[in-house]
């Protein structure tokens, strides 16, 4: 539920000033702690388990039993791809499990890590941090018809398991690499995702400086887990970052300009056409694909950086040059540009970056970070629940060549990950991980699993963003109103591909806590509201899913209600129903049959019941 506020003019704290320095845990060097020896040796499938068990055993507890194989399969699918397994997947997995559970599980993990949908799922997490959007966000909310090129770059990078250091360096400074490739230039689109105010009559320099502040803040959130922007207006109240140091960081980002470049696309997508004026009689010119990139100013264009007194650019204070905060590791001799800054982030001595990213990934797989405030590793954030484990993972991640797939594999192979999420001790908090956490799937997955379970799903990976139908009263609130509704299979694409127009956010996604992308977000809120119930019940998209599924159930099973119930449970919940559930749903079907105009509609309504269950949208 914590989002990073970048553009904070006056941060404040009602807490007293805390003397903090390099003694704070997050600024200490990353250790390489020995793997503890534990009693439950049989549960140690990964060093992760030894760290978790050591704490559990000290508290007199243990890990929960492993979850049932069907649940593990569902969990892996949801976590690694954001999608559901098919009936065939389930049968094959169950059969394999009977012969050799470990081999079957391992093979499934490797299969899903290699799936193109893996990149979509894990790109989505990164796109929150990158505050990705398809429009500028302020009054004009100008459309960014080529923003998706960057989004696809992220998906590809994740799918190819591009080492995280390269992934990061290219986004921060791809343009400064020797002979940058097209792909490395596209990567710099990371810092083109910020909001941009182009309102007529605007103070342009104010708008520009706010973009730079956001870039510094987003960089701080993504790679340092620090709320550096607090120091925009004054010395940070509780972390050791002075206002001067903020503007020294700012100086790294103060000498860039936007540059939209022509590119060659690897795939022949139907390309978005720029809007034409009504009377424009000119023929449509062929659309040249573009990418939004960032480049450095030439030396003669270079700006000096001054401290902004009270965060007000029109009150320039002392001049500063690029530098990094003194509390962190030293900046090497030589050039001080964005590239050397990006390299500095990945220097061996950096105590933060590896911990921060390991924690970001951990929270997606366990429901909560080892540091539960992923955007605040500072003195006001929460300390890690398992500091040694965090360090071990951070070191292992670095030693593995910054491979995100290896890290994810390491985690999902652990007993800690595979244990049951059943809350056997409702009064016992789960900080020590005596069970897996259950949590609602994210907004995009709520949509995606409906589409998959119904069979409507269009699995195309990448390409220009799509516009599923929306009622006009929703699209009319923004000023640039066009919403060119997508037709055919594009209506059934993953939530990730829905055009993210910042003044007209797709309501279903917002209702399920997709961030508004104003600022970098490394942890989504998780609400549970009546609007969510109305959406799942009545949103035309979800009703179409229930209709499609219900029709198929009816065609396949006709009057055999129990078989239909078994089938719909398998498709949606990926398990067999309990007898009590069969009884409840049969009875509902019976009643629905009385009031429905035909048996098919009764089956549709029955499918709709299952698609509205909490379990359907929960990752247990």
């Amino acid at each position, binding site marked *: 539920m*914590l989002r990073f506020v970048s553009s904070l003019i006056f941060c404040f704290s009602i807490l007293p000033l805390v003397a903090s320095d390099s003694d704070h845990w997050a600024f200490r060097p990353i250790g390489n702690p020995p793997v503890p020896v534990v009693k439950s040796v049989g549960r140690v499938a990964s060093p992760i388990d030894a760290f978790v068990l050591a704490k559990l055993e000290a508290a007199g507890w243990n890990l929960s039993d492993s979850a049932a194989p069907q649940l593990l399969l569902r969990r892996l699918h949801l976590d690694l791809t954001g999608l559901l397994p098919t009936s065939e997947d389930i049968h094959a997995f169950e059969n394999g499990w009977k012969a050799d559970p470990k081999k079957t599980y391992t093979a499934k993990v490797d299969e899903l890590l290699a799936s193109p949908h893996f990149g979509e799922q894990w790109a989505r997490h990164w796109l929150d941090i990158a505050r990705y959007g398809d429009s500028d966000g*302020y009054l004009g909310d100008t459309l960014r018809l080529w923003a998706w090129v960057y989004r696809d770059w992220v998906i590809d990078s994740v799918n190819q398991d591009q080492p995280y250091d390269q992934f990061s360096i290219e986004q921060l400074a791809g343009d400064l690499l020797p002979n940058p490739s097209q792909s490395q230039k596209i990567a710099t689109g990371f810092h083109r995702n910020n909001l941009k105010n182009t309102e007529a009559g605007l103070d342009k320099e104010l708008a520009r400086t706010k973009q730079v502040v956001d870039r510094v803040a987003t960089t701080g959130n993504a790679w340092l887990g620090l709320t550096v922007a607090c120091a925009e207006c004054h010395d940070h109240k509780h972390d050791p970052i002075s206002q001067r140091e903020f503007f020294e960081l700012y100086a790294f980002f103060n000498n860039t300009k936007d540059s939209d470049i022509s590119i060659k696309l690897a795939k022949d997508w139907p390309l978005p056409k720029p809007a034409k004026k009504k009377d424009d009689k000119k023929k449509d010119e062929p659309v040249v694909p573009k990418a939004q990139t960032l480049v450095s100013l030439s030396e003669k264009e270079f700006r000096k950086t001054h401290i902004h007194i009270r965060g007000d650019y029109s009150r320039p204070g002392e001049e500063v040059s690029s530098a990094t905060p003194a509390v962190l590791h030293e900046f090497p001799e030589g050039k001080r540009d964005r590239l050397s800054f990006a390299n500095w982030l990945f220097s061996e001595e950096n105590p933060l970056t590896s911990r921060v990213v390991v924690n970001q990934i951990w929270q997606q797989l366990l429901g909560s970070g080892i540091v539960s405030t992923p955007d605040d590793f500072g003195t006001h954030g929460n300390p890690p629940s398992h500091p040694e484990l965090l360090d071990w993972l951070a070191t292992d991640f670095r030693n593995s060549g910054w491979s995100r797939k290896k890290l994810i594999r390491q985690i999902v192979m652990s007993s800690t990950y595979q244990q049951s999420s059943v*809350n056997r001790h409702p009064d016992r908090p789960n900080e020590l991980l005596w069970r897996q956490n259950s949590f609602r799937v994210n907004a995009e997955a709520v949509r995606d699993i409906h589409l998959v379970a119904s069979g409507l799903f269009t699995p195309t990976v990448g390409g220009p963003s799509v516009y599923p139908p929306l009622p006009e009263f929703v699209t009319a609130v923004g000023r640039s109103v066009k919403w060119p509704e997508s037709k055919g299979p594009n209506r059934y694409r993953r939530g990730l591909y829905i055009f993210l127009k910042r*003044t007209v956010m797709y309501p279903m996604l917002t209702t399920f806590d997709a961030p508004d992308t104003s600022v970098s977000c490394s942890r989504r809120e998780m609400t549970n*509201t009546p609007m969510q119930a*109305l959406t799942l019940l*009545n*949103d*035309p998209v979800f009703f179409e899913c229930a209709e499609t599924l219900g029709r198929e159930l009816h065609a396949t099973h006709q009057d055999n209600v129990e078989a239909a119930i078994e089938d719909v449970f398998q498709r949606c919940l990926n398990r067999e129903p309990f007898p009590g559930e069969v009884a409840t749903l049969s009875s509902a079907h019976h009643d629905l049959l009385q009031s429905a105009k035909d048996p098919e509609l009764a089956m549709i309504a029955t499918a709709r019941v299952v698609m509205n269950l909490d379990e359907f949208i929960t990752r247990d």
Partner: protein
Amino acid sequence: MLREDGLLAEDSSFQAPHFAPKAKRCIYLFMEGGPSQMDLFDPKPKLNELDGQPMPESLLEGVKFAFTQKESARLLGSPRTFQKYGQCGMDMSDLLPHLSNHADDIALVRSMYCDQFNHLPGQLLMLTGTPFRGWPTLGSWLNYGLGSTSRDLPGYVAMTTLGRGLPGGAASWSSGFLPSNYSGALFRNEGSPVLNLANPDEISPEMQKRTIDAVNELNRQRYGEVANPEIASRIKNYELAYRMQSAAPELIDLSDESAATKEAYGLDRVDKTGFQASYARNCLLARRLVERGTRFVTLFLSTWDQHSKLDSELATNTKISDQPVAALLQDLKDRGLLDETLVVWGGEFGRTPLGENRSGFKTVTGRDHHPYSFSMWMAGGGIKGGQTLGTTDDIGWGVEEDPVHVHDLHATILHLFGFDHEELTYRFQGRDFRLTDVHGKVVQKLLA
């Protein structure tokens, strides 16, 4: 079966007020674009006298405009006629024939000022206390602080009568970094008022009820298996959703309103855009919402951004809004609701005493954005009516007495709702945030 006990009464997630509140509900009439104060509330005879003259240079130093070219700009008088109304003798122009009957109910603040001269930053400042996206709006803060008192409608509702659209779109009722259940719900004033409120065509009310019963029963069984507390919330929310499905259509069904009420609001007025009838309907719905326990209602009317054709467009806007706004005040009063309902009227800033001579304009017929002084008014909910607070200088450029910054306005509103604005905080990113940031003083003179 659906339970009928009050769910929200069990909701203890909100804070408690710090002292006894005067206001329990708020209707915020947001005039998007920046209404011209010297043509509505703040008469400036001296400005009329100086019409066509340049402005004193001393006043222009360091001043920024959105469009006006400073060097050649000339003062622009107002063609409006003003009179004093009510016991208190409040100034209002001929464009406000209905509101002027309520002079003794309202507190007019002529000394508002802010530090944003572009629309969206100005609107966000007025709505969230900061000029940036991503922050909670006032309505979200109040629902966070007090919870909703409606059993079957959202605690925070936004409705719109839009010309050019809203610069901030959905950010104008967003909960920002507060949990999204504190976000405003966008209602329309006809058809199905809330998105996804109506059942799919094929699903009868009977089927819907049976569906929700089955969902809740299966969720209960699941809860018995796994004891995940989110399931208990999910069950409650399906119950609330079901109740909303009947409450919201009832809300917008005006058949139980008398002909006199409809006429008073001007529901049957006809104009080319339909805005007169639409805004009247929104005003009436605002009353129906607060009557049913909704905590905060914002009605957006767009746009008052008259860079040109000020005289005619201002008349159009007041024609749309003057009658229904006055009727709303009267209606709240007649029903004994005004005492505990705060009504706020205002935009994001005012307009310049200078005529706008933007390059490309052949004639000067409008005014530019003006953050240095503007007018707003409030009524009900613990406000001391029948007073005009603050003065501006002879030409209406700057505030002379009793300056009220947007943060002060926010502090005052929170005070009316029983909150010390420095204490109503939300912890986010390791810090405690508040609506007024590090600013704000309660304007004591406004309190009854």
